[in-house]
């Protein structure tokens, strides 16, 4: 007897009453309307569950077919196209069919053996939902693996971004040679080496520009020699045209970059570039400049601008969280007394206030801080203040609820005992109420501070100030190293905060 009753999901009454119809009829009924057979076998609840589950599954499947074949009309065409386009739908269709049959089998065996458990058919249902869920959520494990190669460089930068934390003072080294286009009778003189100044010497100092396709009319070959550059640092070979535009020399599609030897010397042959000058600018000859351009790091390493900015914003974030928590407590304390049922059930009026306060708190709490931030940005503009306001509001609601629940759960015994000693009201509060609510209050407050710092990083993303603002900008300009630094700082701060709050809580609670 106990064995029957212990079976999963089984209703004891089922075991006693025989089925209304013979087993084959029940199976047939379930084939006509899934679940009907179970209902006829006196398992109405199981039948209902199966009926609605089956309808849901069929509906979801039809929806997926509709999405797979958006341009077809007529259910048969959509069905065929869906199966053709999305192999996954074949699996879903087969599962659906299995489920349909299984429900009939379940009805049959339920009508025959009254103690049958519904486990099998519900597992079939679960598999069906799982298959649909896989499809609806667009889970793509292949994509996850095949895209990993492309993602790795970016992930590497996020994972270890610290090369961007260090910066050097930069100096620009530039030396140019004048080139006359085309050659006239008196081309500019060659530069001559004098002293330690960087210099570029070009031979010849005049020539013709290349044609657009470069096959008929190649540009003049120039032999460039550079002296006194910084050894071992890349030199870009660049041009400056008569109207002051600078552009890099390309050779075979690549930028031309040379690395000077230990004496700061290099030599290279280049073909003069293609360039189009507007007819209005045509003159008999022009003076162009070819130049070597080098950027050298000088002086000691120092923290980069980005690094400093991130630290600055991180501090801003932490203090946003702190100020939000502070003002949150300030307002939540009085509000929590209004939201404590045991204090507010004195009269119908106070009870009405209690319900009103609870209602407002619930509404405020159910709207995420990030949405409040968007609202407050409209009011006070972009920046940390909007973020703080959003967090304050949400903190009041969250803390108000937590505090009031702490007040509701205090033990009335000590209050009675302290009153009985002849203590007055304020003494009773100090000796019987406060010691009871301090630990939960401290605990909730620290927890909230923790949340607020974490939330303020997110709130920055909609413009509410703090490091989140920076983070979302770096992500948008694909500066993964700086974004990585933001992530690191957030992670470190949250970890420290977590530790500190656990320590404080352990002391107080």
């Amino acid at each position: 007897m106990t064995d029957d009753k212990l079976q999963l999901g089984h209703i004891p009454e089922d075991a006693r009453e025989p089925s209304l119809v013979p087993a084959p009829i029940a199976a047939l009924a379930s084939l006509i309307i899934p679940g009907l057979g179970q209902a006829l076998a006196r398992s109405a609840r199981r039948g209902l569950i199966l009926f609605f589950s089956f309808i849901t599954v069929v509906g979801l499947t039809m929806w997926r077919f509709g999405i797979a074949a958006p341009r077809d009309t007529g259910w048969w065409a959509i069905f065929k196209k869906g199966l053709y386009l999305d192999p996954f739908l074949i699996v879903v269709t087969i599962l659906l069919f299995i489920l349909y049959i299984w429900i009939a089998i379940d009805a049959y065996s339920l009508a025959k053996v009254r103690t049958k458990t519904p486990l099998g058919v519900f597992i079939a249902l679960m598999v069906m939902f799982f298959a649909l869920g896989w499809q609806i959520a667009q889970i793509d494990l292949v994509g996850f693996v095949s895209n990993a190669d492309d993602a790795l460089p970016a992930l590497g930068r996020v994972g270890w971004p610290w090369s961007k934390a260090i910066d050097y003072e930069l100096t620009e080294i530039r030396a140019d040679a004048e080139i006359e286009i085309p050659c006239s009778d008196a081309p500019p003189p060659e530069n001559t080496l004098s002293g330690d100044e960087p210099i570029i010497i070009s031979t010849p100092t005049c020539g013709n520009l290349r044609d657009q396709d470069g096959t008929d009319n190649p540009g003049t070959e120039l032999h460039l020699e550079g002296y006194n550059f910084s050894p071992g640092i890349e030199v870009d070979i660049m041009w400056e045209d008569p109207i002051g535009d600078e552009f890099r020399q390309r050779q075979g599609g690549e930028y031309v970059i040379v690395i000077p030897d230990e004496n700061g010397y290099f030599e290279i042959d280049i073909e003069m570039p293609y360039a189009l000058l507007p007819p209005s600018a045509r003159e008999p000859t022009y003076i162009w400049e070819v130049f070597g351009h080098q950027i050298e790091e000088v002086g000691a390493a120092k923290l980069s601008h980005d690094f400093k900015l991130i630290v600055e914003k991180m501090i801003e974030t932490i203090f946003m969280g702190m100020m939000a928590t502070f003002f949150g407590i300030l307002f939540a304390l009085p509000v929590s007394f209004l939201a404590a049922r045991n204090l507010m059930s004195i009269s119908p009026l106070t009870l009405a206030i209690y319900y009103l306060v609870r209602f407002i708190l619930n509404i405020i709490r159910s709207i995420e801080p990030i949405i409040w931030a968007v609202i407050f940005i409209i009011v006070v503009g972009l920046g940390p203040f909007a973020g703080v306001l959003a967090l304050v509001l949400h903190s009041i609601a969250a803390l108000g609820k937590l505090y009031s629940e702490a007040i509701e759960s205090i033990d009335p015994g000590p209050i009675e005992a302290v009153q009985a000693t002849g203590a007055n009201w304020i003494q009773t509060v100090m000796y019987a109420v406060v010691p009871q609510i301090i630990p939960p209050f401290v605990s909730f407050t620290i927890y909230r501070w923790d949340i607020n710092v974490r939330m303020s990083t997110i709130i920055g993303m909609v413009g509410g100030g703090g490091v989140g603002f920076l983070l979302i900008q770096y992500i948008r300009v694909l500066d993964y190293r700086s974004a990585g630094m933001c992530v690191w700082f957030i992670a470190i701060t949250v970890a420290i905060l977590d530790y500190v709050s656990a320590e404080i809580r352990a002391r107080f609670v």
Partner: protein
Amino acid sequence: MLEVRHLSKTYADGTKALKDVSFSVPDGEFLVVIGLSGSGKSTMLRCINRLIDPTEGEILWDGVDLAQLKGEDLRKARRKIGMIFQHFNLVKRSSVLKNVLAGRLGYTPSWNSLIGRFSAEDKIKAFEAIKRLGIEDQIYKRASELSGGQQQRVGVARALMQDPEMILADEPVASLDPVLAHSIMQYLELLNQEDKITMVCSLHYLDLVQRYATRVIGLKDGVLVYEGSKADIRAMTDEQFKDIYGQDAERVGGGLEGDLGVKVGGAA
């Protein structure tokens, strides 16, 4: 001398907890109140020190009607009446010392107690009370770290701090096991006999009643149904007791009586 006359209490929901109860307690008496749960024992005790306001009746204590007192006068009266609770009603997170010192609040100016300052005499008094109850090793522990018996001793010490002339004990041993029950009751008996503190104590166990009471009153559904002297209650059989008290009356276990570790006061 405590005289309760025609005391009635009707709660806001219409429950009549006490119906016209009258009795008197001479000074130095150990009065035990018996009765079923819900018979009005707790309500009656709380009416005496006005944790609950009675609906009707007089509670005359040394000629003053406690039922009429308000504000400062009520607090002054309360501090001479100690109270001990079934669930000890200690602030669990506070230390034993702080819990005991709380008994002195009625004598301490508000501004001093707000910053937690008690006079040196109060502290010495607290140490003495704690020592008298044998819990001096636990003095700086949190109340929640103590066992049930130790917590009730803290409760007794807190009541002692009030220099009470009367102690109201609301089922002081109902949460304790039999051995501890006797131990606590013996402390109460000691205070009754040595310090001449009037005891009004509600109890559940018949043999504790027989052992400690000098007078007994019985309540049933808020009505006083029995009043008897020490001799009367000793002569009473279990059947009679159950008749007044209700079917859930029980003995602690008679064998324990007489061979207890804690022996204080005049054992019967």
